């Protein structure tokens, strides 16, 4: 590790310690000494690190009905499935419409209309159709990811360099070979640009689905909404913390896949 990276890391750790320490300290200060329940900053609303850690440990114990791991797993599962199905269908549709002017012209108004719908507004309908379980959450994540990936792939498929297609044709490529060797790889570069936002939006979709999905859907969104019912800020913070970790891990995973599949791009070339 270079000195520069060490310095950055040191600063990052310092900020973390200051924020957590400050949080813990300030939420412990009484407003009027010895009067219970009166704080400068009331931990009732934002909890305190020590209380969050306590609840975290408690939620890990097998004695609770739904452990934090089960809930995290449910959220991750729905997100990953929604994400994968969203990418593959969005990519296929983007490619198809991107390479066919006729289809693109016919479908354009419908796609624009559907995409401008706030996806959150669909949640009750999706729940009505698909129930409260995993499937509804997957469908919700899919409906968001699909359009992000679709629009990017569509752009990518439209902007394939015509001279690359021509040169493939001169080298004897059939239409199918042009599709697999020219159009798909050039469009993929665009598709990848949409993956990082897609995963965050998939996670948003899933959590919103869990808000109204109830216990059968499980998940961290359920923990949050349940904690709202019991006015338990510590549990909410636990859920938020786990969601943050999930988001980071997924984003890093995508970066890895991207660096591998787009290794031909100048920004990934080690000279």
């Amino acid at each position, binding site marked *: 590790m270079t000195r520069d990276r060490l310095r950055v890391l040191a600063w990052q750790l310092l900020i973390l310690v200051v924020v957590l320490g400050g949080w813990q300290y300030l939420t412990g200060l009484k407003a009027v000494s010895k009067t219970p329940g009166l704080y400068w900053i009331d931990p009732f609303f934002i909890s305190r690190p020590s209380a969050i850690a306590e609840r975290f440990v408690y939620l890990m114990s097998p004695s609770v009905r739904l452990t934090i791991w089960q809930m995290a797993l449910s959220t991750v599962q729905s997100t990953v499935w929604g994400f994968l199905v969203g990418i593959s269908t969005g990519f296929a549709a983007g490619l198809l419409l991107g390479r066919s002017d006729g289809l693109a012209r016919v479908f354009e108004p419908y796609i624009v209309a559907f995409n401008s719908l706030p996806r959150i507004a669909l949640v009750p309908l999706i729940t009505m159709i698909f129930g409260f379980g995993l499937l509804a959450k997957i469908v919700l994540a899919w409906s968001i990811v699909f359009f992000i990936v679709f629009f990017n792939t569509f752009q990518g498929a439209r902007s394939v360099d015509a*001279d*690359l297609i021509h040169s*493939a044709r001169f*080298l*004897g490529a059939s239409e199918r*070979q042009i599709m697999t*060797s020219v159009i798909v790889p050039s469009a993929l570069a665009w598709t990848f640009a949409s993956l990082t936002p897609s995963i965050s939006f998939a996670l948003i979709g899933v959590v919103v689905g869990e808000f109204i999905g109830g216990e059968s859907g499980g998940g961290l969104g359920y923990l949050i909404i349940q904690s709202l019912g019991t006015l338990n800020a510590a549990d909410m913070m636990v859920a938020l913390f786990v969601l943050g970790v999930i988001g980071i891990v997924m984003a890093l995973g995508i970066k890895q896949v991207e660096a591998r599949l787009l290794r031909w791009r100048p920004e990934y*070339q080690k000279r």
Partner: protein
Amino acid sequence: MTPRARVSIRGLAKTFGQGSREVPAVSAVSFDVHEREFVAIVGPSGCGKSTILNMIGGLIAPSGGEILVDGQRVTGAPPSQIGYVFQKDTVFPWRTVERNIALGLEYRNVPAEERTARVRKAIALAGLQGFEEAFPATLSGGMRQRVALMRSLVVDPEILLMDEPFGALDTHTKLDLHAELLSLWEAKRQTVIFVTHDLSEAITLADRVVVMTRRPGRIKLLHDVKLPRPRDVIRIRETDDYSREYQQIWHTLGEEFRAPP
């Protein structure tokens, strides 16, 4: 016996746009390119020389006249015996050097073993050893154009169309590639049509130079280059014969460059 014409261009015309915005690009162009012949088309920019090449390749349709390749009229699809090298960088950025050169062989379902052998040979011929696994983003413009050239040549096209392939390169790299192209061509003697705006490039490489007028492009002059082969691309420029050829054509071409647009 006159050698047989591989490419015949008869009364070729092309206009772009429609109605009152119609712009004639090429008009009344006729010439033959024979077996094993290296023909260069030179002219001021915008004279339609690349348009002619695109029509021969079947990329765009002529507005008038016809093009025959081996007696077959070109319509739409590129004739299979033609290879094409573009001015623009058309190396696939997501494929390594090796896999770029292998493209045509993959498309033609050449068995893997033979493919590897032919690609190896092409890489050696182009002096690209050590860069087999490199992605184009890490190569210089000259090396990328070498890859593009070998990618076209590895499938053994009988007719090679080249559209200012070295136009974007610096003089030094250009001369290197001229030498390389000539030695490859001496070995195979493909029929070549080479478009350029660089007269010295045309004379160095070609057997015959087609000089075009300004837009709309017509043939101004068909000139046989009487320089012996094999040619040394650097030394040949110092010979009197070369200067004579150059001046003869420059005289005609110069009128076109000087004429007000």
